[in-house]
């Protein structure tokens, strides 16, 4: 600073230049610090200890000028790289030993982070903050007593009355999952208080309701591996850890090497931290089941898979889930990071990875990410580790197949979809012969059913000839039919059908590119088998039969052809099928033509729902109708039901969103109108047509009237949605009750394959659409799921309501 240049004052240009340079120099230093902090603990030629020591000195020197920046980077790292928790706590410990004030500021910063995360319902971030604070006890930054006080306060939150169980669960989970890091230290310094904390937790767990457990299980049976509720499992692991005097072998603890420096440091006390009180808008994580498919006997010789109740299993799984979370947007990176797991030499890594990926895929009620995320990561894993991963995956598939008998129905579907997709990426190579014993079983048994459904999905991704060629001969009975239309009006003996002449005329007219009105003309004199005094005199089953089968057959070349045919003759559909009965008749005729092409039926129904030719309720009633009973346990039918429900849900959400936006704009416009009359420029700039529906697209002020109309539309849609759920659940109750009663009077076992599939589908509807169904929970309870219902059916409802209890 002492080197003064002549004419410094006058040289404005030079000054500005130097200022800029200083700013950019600072920026450079900041960037360098950031990169040093981010990278500490990565592969390096020198030891972690010397790196940490060096970094602590560098940071200490820069604390004066870059204090807040360093604080921010360090807390960020703590939350975003929880796998490096102990590395950063060591660093903070070393800094605290050098500069007590900075240590205090850091603790304050971290505490604020914890509080903010709790308020914002960022549950994982909160847990990582808590873990970091706990680990700071190990680094002599925070006193053990003050941490225990915090943990006590959190467990107290589990003793509150009148709050959801999921809230209590989370606070207990947060405390338990922190103990692997700090249990030993607390045990050595505050044994009694720790024991007291554990007793409180034990009391809580003993009283906790676990009705949801059955709905979330992947398998109904607990052999060979129990499907434990997540808190129970963690509790068992913590108890075992306590038995082992809190010694665990998984967490690297770099601070141990600095013990002599750290134990000299002064400790800070955490301030009193109280969990923010419950608010109805808070969403807590849902409970889950710990998925296990392997134990050490499944793995080849080598490092041993930690037991189900060893804390190492929990730590490894949590870490792997975290890697997936961090890298799921880039499947190749994700696979590489998984395979690069830091403790890979100590565990049978491939098995742990496969188990964790299937745990996510089978997660109930729904996987965290799209199913294809997991499928594509598994493909990358096989590519990166071709010598071992494909075998482990094959072994996993085998295990899943053997245990499929008691697998829940939603997971069965996901397993089918994944396996067909996986095979299509590996030339459909599979040793089907190993599964030929399933051919002796009842076709409704989950094993032959699995093979059949996989082949149906594989067929969609491939072609019929290919599927036929890849399957060994004994499996012929499971090979799907060729997906072709069956047009009865051109088949042998069609002459005797009442509609044949008209159908042939219709073919000629449509080929000659006739207008929709002309179609009606061709169909005009087809006799109506129904009596005139029926409510809907326009409904003529024969007209619909001839029209739907002929038109769809003409469009049978591809989806595009079918869609074009449907939109061209949309008018005819609407004319012929006004009532729900008539709409069901359309579906029945579509089925008659296309029953060998399940994918076609799915997309046609999707199309007809979109174009409002049929309503959601018609689809639901059709699925449960007598004629469809032969299809009732097939996967595609439920695919259709779920797409129907989803369509309705999307519609309701969209109307809700649009209404909220319009209300917001109205409010905005009202508060603005005092200031200016000609609206804000921002709104006028936006001339592009992003809107979906007519009302309230443009950014003009909506009128009260418009908002009212939107409200009405939303209410009508919600009424439809409620009605749809009522239909579906009522039909479920009817067929299930009928079955139970019939079995009872005949003295037969009710627990047949059909029963298991059906109750499983009921469960699936509740779980897949739980957010929507939740809204009508009390209506369902008063109208349908009443106390006089068979307990087997009622149980499914109770499991559902306890999910967010």
């Amino acid at each position: 600073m002492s080197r003064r240049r002549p004419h410094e004052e006058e040289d404005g240009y030079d000054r500005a230049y130097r200022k800029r340079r200083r700013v950019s120099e600072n920026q450079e230093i900041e960037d360098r610090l950031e990169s040093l902090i981010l990278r500490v603990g990565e592969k390096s030629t020198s030891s972690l200890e010397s790196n940490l020591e060096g970094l602590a000195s560098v940071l200490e020197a820069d604390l004066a000028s870059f204090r807040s920046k360093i604080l921010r980077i360090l807390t960020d790292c703590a939350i975003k790289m929880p796998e490096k928790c102990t590395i950063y706590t060591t660093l903070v410990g070393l800094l605290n030993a050098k500069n007590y004030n900075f240590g205090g500021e850091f603790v304050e910063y971290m505490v604020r982070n914890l509080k903010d995360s709790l308020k914002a319902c960022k549950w994982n971030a909160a847990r990582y903050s808590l873990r970091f604070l706990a680990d700071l006890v190990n680094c002599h930054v925070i006193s053990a007593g003050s941490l225990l006080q915090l943990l006590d306060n959190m467990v107290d939150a589990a003793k509150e009355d009148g709050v959801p169980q999921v809230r209590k669960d989370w606070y207990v989970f947060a405390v338990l999952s922190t103990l692997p890091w700090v249990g030993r230290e607390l045990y050595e310094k505050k044994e009694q208080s720790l024991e007291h904390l554990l007793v409180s937790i034990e009391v809580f767990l003993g009283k906790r309701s676990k009705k949801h457990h059955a709905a979330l299980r992947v398998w109904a049976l607990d052999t060979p591996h129990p499907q434990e509720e997540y808190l129970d499992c963690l509790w068992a692991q913590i108890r075992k850890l306590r038995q082992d005097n809190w010694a665990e072998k998984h967490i690297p603890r770099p601070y141990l090497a600095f013990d002599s420096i750290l134990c000299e440091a002064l400790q800070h006390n955490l301030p009193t931290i109280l969990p923010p009180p419950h608010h109805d808008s808070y969403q807590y994580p849902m409970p889950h089941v710990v998925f296990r498919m392997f134990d050490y006997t499944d793995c080849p010789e080598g490092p041993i898979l930690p037991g189900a109740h060893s804390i190492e299993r929990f730590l490894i799984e949590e870490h792997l889930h975290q890697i997936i979370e961090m890298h799921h947007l880039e499947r190749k990176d994700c696979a590489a990071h998984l395979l690069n797991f830091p403790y890979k030499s100590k565990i049978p890594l491939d098995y742990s990875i496969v188990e964790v990926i299937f745990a996510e895929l089978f997660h109930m009620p729904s996987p965290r990410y799209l199913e294809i995320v997991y499928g594509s990561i598994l493909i990358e894993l096989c590519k990166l580790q071709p010598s071992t991963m494909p075998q482990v995956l094959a072994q996993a598939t085998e295990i899943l197949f053997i245990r499929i008998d008691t697998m829940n129905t939603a997971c069965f579907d996901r397993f089918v979809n994944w396996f067909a997709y996986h095979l299509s990426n590996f030339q459909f190579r599979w040793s089907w012969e190993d599964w030929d014993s399933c051919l002796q079983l009842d076709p409704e048994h989950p094993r032959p059913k699995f093979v059949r459904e996989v082949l149906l999905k594989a067929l969609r991704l491939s072609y019929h000839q290919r599927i036929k060629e890849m399957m060994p001969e004994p499996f012929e009975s499971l090979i799907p039919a060729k997906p072709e239309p069956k047009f009865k009006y051109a088949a042998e003996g069609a002459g005797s059908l009442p509609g044949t002449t008209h159908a042939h005329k219709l073919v000629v007219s449509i080929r000659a590119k006739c207008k929709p009105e002309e179609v009606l003309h061709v169909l005009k004199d087809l006799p109506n088998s129904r009596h005139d005094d029926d409510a809907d005199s326009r409904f003529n089953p024969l007209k619909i039969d001839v029209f739907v089968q002929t038109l769809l057959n003409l469009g049978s070349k591809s989806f595009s052809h079918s869609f074009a045919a449907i939109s061209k003759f949309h008018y005819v559909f609407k004319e012929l099928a006004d009532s729900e009965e008539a709409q069901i008749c359309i579906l029945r005729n579509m089925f008659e033509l296309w029953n060998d092409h399940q994918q076609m039926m799915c997309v046609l129904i999707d199309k007809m729902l979109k174009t409002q030719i049929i309503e959601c309720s018609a689809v639901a009633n059709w699925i449960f109708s007598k004629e469809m009973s032969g299809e009732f346990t097939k996967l595609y039918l439920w695919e259709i039901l779920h797409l129907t429900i989803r369509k309705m849900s999307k519609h309701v959400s969209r109307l809700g969103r649009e209404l909220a936006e319009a209300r917001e704009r109205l409010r905005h416009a009202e508060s603005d109108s005092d200031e200016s009359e000609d609206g804000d420029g921002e709104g006028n700039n936006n001339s592009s047509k992003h809107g979906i529906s007519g009302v309230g697209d443009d950014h003009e002020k909506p009128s009260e009237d418009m908002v009212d109309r939107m409200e009405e539309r939303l209410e009508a849609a919600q009424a439809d949605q409620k009605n749809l759920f009522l239909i579906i659940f009522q039909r479920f109750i009817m067929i299930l009750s009928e079955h139970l009663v019939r079995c009872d009077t005949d003295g037969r076992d009710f627990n047949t394959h059909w029963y298991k599939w059906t109750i499983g589908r009921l469960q699936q509807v509740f779980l897949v659409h739980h957010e929507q169904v939740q809204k009508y929970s009390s209506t369902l309870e008063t109208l349908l799921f009443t106390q006089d219902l068979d307990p087997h059916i009622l149980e499914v409802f109770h499991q559902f309501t306890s999910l967010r209890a």
Partner: protein
Amino acid sequence: MPTFASPSVELSSYRDRRFKGSAGELKRLLRTSSTLYVGNLSFYTTEEQIYELFSKCGDFKSVIMGLDKIEKTPCGFCFVEYHSRSDAENAMRYINGTRLDDRIIRTDWDAGFVEGRQYGRGKTGGQVRDEYRTYFDEGRPRRNEIYQI
């Protein structure tokens, strides 16, 4: 609304040279588009198969099969138009570079389908790349190669 940066959803270096508009405009369209170009398909891959695979990432509006300009038969590419950008991004992330009909298929952003784009642009009616190809590709036979299979 584009989600945050991630390499598998970035734009590739390919640009449609017949695009009517500036390079900047093309780039802007590509960055907000929900339409994908899908390439390296077998000529035998059907619309149905495309549907099955790409619907794993979300609902879409349409699939437009690429056709030989002269023969009007599939010539190994298509466009998939999703309703939302994020679904299209997922297809870029999870489908690009995986297999369909035993072929590694490639997806890329497209500025949006315009009538005429469904046809091959090669002299013989198919895609240009098949005309320059020096090896035999069983899934994409040129007219004079049909006898080979």
